């Protein structure tokens, strides 16, 4: 890995040939082309609107970056979103909680769900892939069972401020996402916690023997993932004004795509929040730009897939070059 190789002497500064910078460059080029093809694409109105729509996946992508850096994965995030959305509606309507308490309760349920994931992954040593596939089904089933597939509607007006309102001209949930990005970025880059994540991803045994609290850190990231899912559920319910038991289904794939596109290696040890953000923005704006240009829904999915493959090829060729040089 690059961490152990000696400094590569090359003409261009290292930050320029990093995956994230290349990706940002591709993003800028793609935006320019789409902007030329469609005049409505690069308007503030449209861009802010896209920011609003990408918050739900964005909030999930931040802890997912942490998890994938440690070499794990969390496929149950979509189901946790569904479960939290249902618990929000259920606790408000059927259990009679006041709505602010219901929101806190829903986020708490998400935390518990993530905690259960983390507990069984660290204590019982179930591989994360298996565990989260199991909880994907379990939590979705709980959501459908508890809700009996009845949706909850008629929330008070103030509730919609989170999902549909604006503050200083920017959608409210985008502010929430921005705060999340800053906090996650600082945590990953500047704290011991962040360094521990990279250590676990690079060599878990060495990290353990170095005295790092590996199990506790893993527990924390999976719980964070659950909490983020609860937050995302709140934003989602507020945006669509109703709760349904199928909410969030399929989110895990969008989240992982954004994280991997951003340069986080699926094998662990490499990744940045900045990369995830670029990946997230890229997917959202590509989908939007293509739709505005008149490309039909199914063709857009093909383009996203092609972009993902291209990005993985670039990432592996960059890492390969560093390995060979070292």
């Amino acid at each position, binding site marked *: 890995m690059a961490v152990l190789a000696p400094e590569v002497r090359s003409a261009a500064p290292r930050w320029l040939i990093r995956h994230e910078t290349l990706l940002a460059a591709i993003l800028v080029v793609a935006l320019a082309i789409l902007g030329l093809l469609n005049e409505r694409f690069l308007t503030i109105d449209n861009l802010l609107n896209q920011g609003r*729509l990408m918050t739900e996946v964005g909030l999930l992508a931040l802890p997912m970056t942490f998890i994938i850096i440690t070499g794990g994965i969390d496929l149950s995030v979509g189901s946790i979103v569904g479960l939290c959305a249902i618990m929000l509606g259920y606790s408000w309507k059927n259990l009679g909680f006041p709505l602010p308490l219901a929101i806190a309760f829903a986020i708490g349920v998400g935390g518990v769900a993530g905690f259960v994931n983390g507990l069984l992954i660290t204590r019982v040593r179930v591989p994360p892939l298996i565990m989260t596939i199991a909880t994907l089904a379990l939590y979705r089933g709980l959501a459908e069972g*508890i809700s*009996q597939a009845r949706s909850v509607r008629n929330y008070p007006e103030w509730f919609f401020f989170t999902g549909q309102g604006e503050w200083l001209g920017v959608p409210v949930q985008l502010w929430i996402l921005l705060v999340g990005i800053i906090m996650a970025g600082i945590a990953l880059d500047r704290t011991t916690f962040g360094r521990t994540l990279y250590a676990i991803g690079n060599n878990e045994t060495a990290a353990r023997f170095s005295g790092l609290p590996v199990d506790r850190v893993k527990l924390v990231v999976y719980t964070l993932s659950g909490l983020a899912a609860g937050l995302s559920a709140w934003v989602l319910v507020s945006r*669509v*004004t109703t709760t349904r038991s*199928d909410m969030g289904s399929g989110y895990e794939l969008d989240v992982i795509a954004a994280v991997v596109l951003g340069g986080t290696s699926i094998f662990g040890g490499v990744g940045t929040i900045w990369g995830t953000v670029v990946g997230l923005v890229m997917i959202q704006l590509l989908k939007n730009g293509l739709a505005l240009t008149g490309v*039909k*829904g199914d063709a857009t999915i093909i383009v996203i897939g092609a972009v993902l493959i291209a990005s993985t090829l670039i990432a592996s060729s960059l890492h390969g070059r560093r390995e060979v040089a070292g």
Partner: protein
Amino acid sequence: MKQLMKHRMMKTAALVILGVAMAGGSAVAADKWDGGDDLPTSPLACDAGPAAAAAAKPYDGGQTTGAPDKAGKPITLVDVPKLIGIGYFNATSKGMQDAAKEIGNVKVTTDGPTEAKIDEQIKFIDNYITRGVDGILFAANDPVAIAPVLKKALSKGIDVVGYDANSQPDARQWFINQAQFNGIAKAMVDAMAKEAGEDKGFAIVTSTFTTPNQARWIAEMSAYAAKCHPKLKWLETVEAQEDNVLSFNQATTLINKYGDKLSGLFGMTSVATPASAEAVTKAGQCGKLAVVGLATPNAMKPYVNAGCVKSVVLWNPVDLGYAATYVIRAVVDGKLKPGATSVEAGKLGKLNVVNGSEILLGSPFIFTKDNIKDFDF
């Protein structure tokens, strides 16, 4: 630390058990069938006869703000159905293209998600609002969730007309109702009582419990059966999400689960009905298990001709798309205003306004062995 972990584990376990218990508690069946909604029902009279005219309701649709005057000018429309790629919405799309060609100055594109997901549908509509279309035709995956984005369209001066699956009334200007919900309910339940028997058990295969039109039909069917065929026994309703394979698997599971107690299957979507018929055929129960449902004729031709299915209830989806296009053109031209009692729809003639802002297409149509060969959609 260990104490804390143990405490936390117990708390988690308690919460999980609580959740399961709540699920179990709320699974105790209510006295009406699963899959119906909670809105008031109005079952028709038991004997054959036209439905009594409902009392006129005041207009309850939404309004556009700042819509530019495009009367008589060419307009571009987008049609966003529940999902694309199934025969039913291919048929409505065809009807829209036929109408567009007849009217002359209308261009309609059909675009939508490949799965019946409300979140995806909202994104599609949102993108088209940004692109700037003159009108939106929709069939909603969820009546409440779709309302904010439709209201956004109305506020930007875009005309909004629904068909097939309604939204909240104030989120669109008009809704083309293919058939009265109680009319469909009567046709379905009468057919089932005749084919399976007055006191037999049946099960329902639907899309999801929250899909608006399916929920409405099941609620009306429940009320009509309670009124006119009280001995019919409802066994279970299962969700099959408009997915072929899932519908087949759910139907097969029902056949295996209930065995002789099951004498009939209701298919509530154009995907569930042929899949249920296939499940019945594969289980060798053709003729012994009645299949009654909503479906397009082409999908049901093999089963009707084999005698497995005796009656297929539907309306003409091609006419539905056709009428929707004519209605939105009339709205743009200012010929259809709130408070109107009827609208001209090309070759369909005059269609009546019911329920405040709904336009009725007509009565349900029953496809049988005798007439199914005349249809090709």
